[in-house]
């Protein structure tokens, strides 16, 4: 049985009886058993996965109405809640937190008969770009176990790349879906802000983050978006998408479309020569597909990383304030403490990156400093929005490499937070502006992947998928060597 298959091919095979849901699930669980001690994509597994698969087989054989997913195995980033399961955010502070409710995206997947394999690793509270900040040890890149898988949804990307599931849900605050998608050679989508319900996603920076599908193919990404997108009564920020079918006309191509090549993202100092060469190739491919490419400049981009960390730290400082270990958390005797000393003791369990951002988040919006930092960051954000809206008056798509570099070795950048932050340079713009962006696997050079990023205007995911599918069809990538 070939586990390196797409969701759409899998559904065909289940429908035609090539294999049963149970067989495929069992094989996937075996694969997890075989490789995950090396990869460490998962933090916990769903004990009832095989049973869930059997029930779906029964539905199929009895002719009962069956959901669109036909039991394909999907992993979930461990910052998304599922009733009765541990949701740790890869943090010691939530090590034993069992969610008493289920996220909207999970309900939608389960209603359509997806089988959840388990919860995947991440940088603690989704803050990081390598999974090295997970409190439970890093995830390895399936393309080379000495290399980082990207982050923060590194576990999700690795689980898909290593054939430990067919797809995963990650979350993207500043590139956390797209960056590991690029590093692990999978498709990663950050949709328009508000397209997917965040109910049940544990907030890091709620004004800009979104859940996003991570898949092996562009079509699978569109398929998953069909299931999880749309308004949700539990999330006031969700928007109506008119029930668009993202798969429809996905092969229409991009003939005559206008593409802007973002100058600041393709000529930046940190860009590696491999990534630079790949970008030039991609531009050639887009042109050969009938699109016209032209350089475009968004002058505010050099300020976006600073603005991004200012805004996200402010929100994180507030969003993470609730972890005081009083209503839930871990064992810590309260006897003999007064309130303030107890919470400073309990909150000492946060890891270094989270602590850094909470401290930053206490400073940048504080009285006397907000004007210099937080309010200025909001200005950068609104300036960037007007620049990008102007660019979309002229262009259908804006492109750049997803990350300025290829995956690097463990420990290489972790001690240099500022260099690490610059990895976000090409991805934060989509979050700050709320625009959709997708990372498409494009090259594998020296055994390590490179992804290309395409951005489109708000709610133009359908068109975004058409361009991503067109680019994907130009590639011929090797299989993961694991």
């Amino acid at each position, binding site marked *: 049985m070939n586990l390196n298959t797409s969701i759409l091919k899998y559904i065909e095979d289940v429908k035609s009886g090539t294999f049963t849901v149970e067989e495929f699930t069992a094989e996937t669980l075996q694969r997890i058993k075989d490789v995950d001690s090396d990869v460490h994509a998962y933090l916990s597994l769903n004990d009832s996965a095989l049973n869930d698969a059997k029930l779906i087989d029964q539905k199929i054989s009895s002719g009962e109405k069956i959901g669109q997913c036909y039991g394909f195995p999907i992993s979930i980033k461990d*910052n998304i809640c599922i009733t009765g399961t541990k949701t740790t955010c890869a943090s010691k502070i939530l090590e034993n937190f069992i*969610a008493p409710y289920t996220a909207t995206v999970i309900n939608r997947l389960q209603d359509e008969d997806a089988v959840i394999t388990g919860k995947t690793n991440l940088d603690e509270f989704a803050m990081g770009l390598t999974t090295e900040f997970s409190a439970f040890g890093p995830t390895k890149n399936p393309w080379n176990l000495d290399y980082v898988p990207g982050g923060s949804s590194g576990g999700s990307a690795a689980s898909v790349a290593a054939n430990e599931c067919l797809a995963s849900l990650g979350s993207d605050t500043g590139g956390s879906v797209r960056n590991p998608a690029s590093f692990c050679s999978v498709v990663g989508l950050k949709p328009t802000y508000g397209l997917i319900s965040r109910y*049940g996603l544990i*907030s890091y920076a709620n004004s800009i983050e979104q859940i996003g599908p991570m898949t092996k193919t562009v079509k699978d990404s569109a398929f998953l978006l069909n299931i999880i997108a749309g308004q949700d009564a539990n999330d006031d*920020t969700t928007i109506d998408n008119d029930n668009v079918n993202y798969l429809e006309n996905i092969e229409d191509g991009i003939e005559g479309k206008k593409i802007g090549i973002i100058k600041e993202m393709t000529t930046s100092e940190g860009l590696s020569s491999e990534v630079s060469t790949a970008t030039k190739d991609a531009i050639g491919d887009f042109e050969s597909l009938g699109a016209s490419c032209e350089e475009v400049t968004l002058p505010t981009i050099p300020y976006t990383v600073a603005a991004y960390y200012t805004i996200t730290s402010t929100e994180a400082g*507030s969003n993470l304030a609730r972890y005081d270990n009083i209503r839930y958390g871990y064992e810590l005797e309260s006897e003999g403490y007064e309130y303030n000393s107890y919470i400073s003791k309990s909150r000492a369990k946060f890891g270094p990156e989270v602590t850094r951002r909470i401290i930053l988040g206490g400073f940048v919006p504080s009285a006397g400093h907000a004007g210099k930092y937080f309010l200025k960051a909001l200005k950068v954000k609104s300036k960037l929005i007007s620049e990008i809206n102007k660019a979309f008056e002229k262009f259908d798509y804006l492109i750049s490499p997803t990350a300025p570099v290829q995956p690097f070795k463990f420990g290489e950048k972790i001690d240099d937070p500022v260099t690490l932050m610059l990895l976000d340079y090409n991805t934060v713009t989509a979050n700050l502006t709320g625009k959709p962006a997708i990372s498409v696997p494009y090259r594998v050079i020296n055994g390590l992947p490179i992804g290309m990023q395409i951005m489109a205007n708000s709610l133009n995911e359908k068109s975004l998928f058409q361009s991503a599918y067109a680019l994907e069809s130009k590639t011929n990538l090797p299989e993961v060597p694991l």
Partner: protein
Amino acid sequence: MTKIGLEIHCQLTKLESKLFCSCKANYREFEANHNICPVCMGLPGSLPRLNQKAVESATSIALALTCDTPEKIAFFRKNYFYPDLPKNFQITQLNVYGDMSVGGEGYVSVEDKKIKIRRIQLEEDPGRIIYEGASERTKITLVDYNRAGTPLVEIVTDPDFESPRQVRVFLNILSDLLENLGVAEPGLEGAMRADGNVSIEGGNKVEIKNIGSFHDLEKALHFEITRQQSLFERDIEIAQETRHWDDRRKITVSSRSKEEDQDYRYFLENDIPWVTIDQSTRDRLKENMPESISSKKERYIEKFDIAPQVADIIASDRYYSKLFENAYSDDNAKDIANLITTDVIGFIDTKEKQQNSKITSKHLSDLIDAINSKTITRNSAKVALQEIMKSGKDTKFVLDEMDLGQVSDSSEIDTIISQIFEEEKQAVIDAKERPETVNFLVGKVMQKTKGKADPVKTLELIKSKLNQ
């Protein structure tokens, strides 16, 4: 010169659910921590869902207080750590870049003075902390989150009050207004709270917190003014600070915590999109608003020639005004009003009694009809009212059952008067000498007839008998 400002918090208890989830706004009937859900407990991953009805109730309050109401409102996070705050931030409102809260400037007329309202904001109430344990050593702190997320309106005034008495009058007007609007029940324990700030002679402002009731607020303000005056007289500077009301010792005490120095790091609550309150919504709210107390009062005075004090009492209270509105006709309005303020109020003077009373508007109009047609006396009406309040039985039935029909037959009254003249010889002599003592004899007749004798006729008959 004394300056007092107020910060009033009022729960919107008439709403079905909390501000951001479907738990009950009326948390009082629940066992501790049984009116909670992932949202009001701030569990990881939960998101607030704004109760649109709460926005409408708060906007109604703003409109009733003549406040500016902006087209768009936003919510903010007020960040601070406290055990009763499940998220360790409170979702509230702020007017930083122009008006962004449900209400901007408005005013309330208190006697001849206009008290300026600075702003009105909609926010969530925190949970409740309960301290238990007999001694300092065995002290434990419990938290009940049933209240967390209850819709709360904060009303902030300018320091326009000159005396605690003015504050009391204002709070009475305000709580009547909120109740009349049908959005709050200020009488419920803890449903309406007020903090005050005081400065004298242009000195520093002192905030007073932790005040349990309006009654205590008046006491706290008095204490604080006296304290500041005694410092002022001795040339000691009054420190700008927050003081807590010590309910046991009835004094204000300097707070150890530096609340005034706390930096709340306010920023927009992005989980709740901006809310648009357009003109048509405001028009609808205005249209559906019950008649204001002041306009009711004016109407009663002008249309029915009811005395201003009587009109004020009836208009200010929802229960009395409802009784009145449904009972009066153009002929008897004044009599109904007087019956309410002289007799009904005596029996039904608390919210609890209002709830339990079985008196209806029909009873009142029937009683007035009976008095005006001389079927019963005013006194009998009072006796009947007491019975009706308990049983709720039909007026005519009660009058018959209690035998309250008026005695206006002259010979019958005459017989009784003769008896009294026999029994009260001295009083008869007195009355002959000093006519003003005749009321004693009238009273005796009333006593004997259980108030049923027609008092006018009785007086006439006694007078003529005295002159015989």
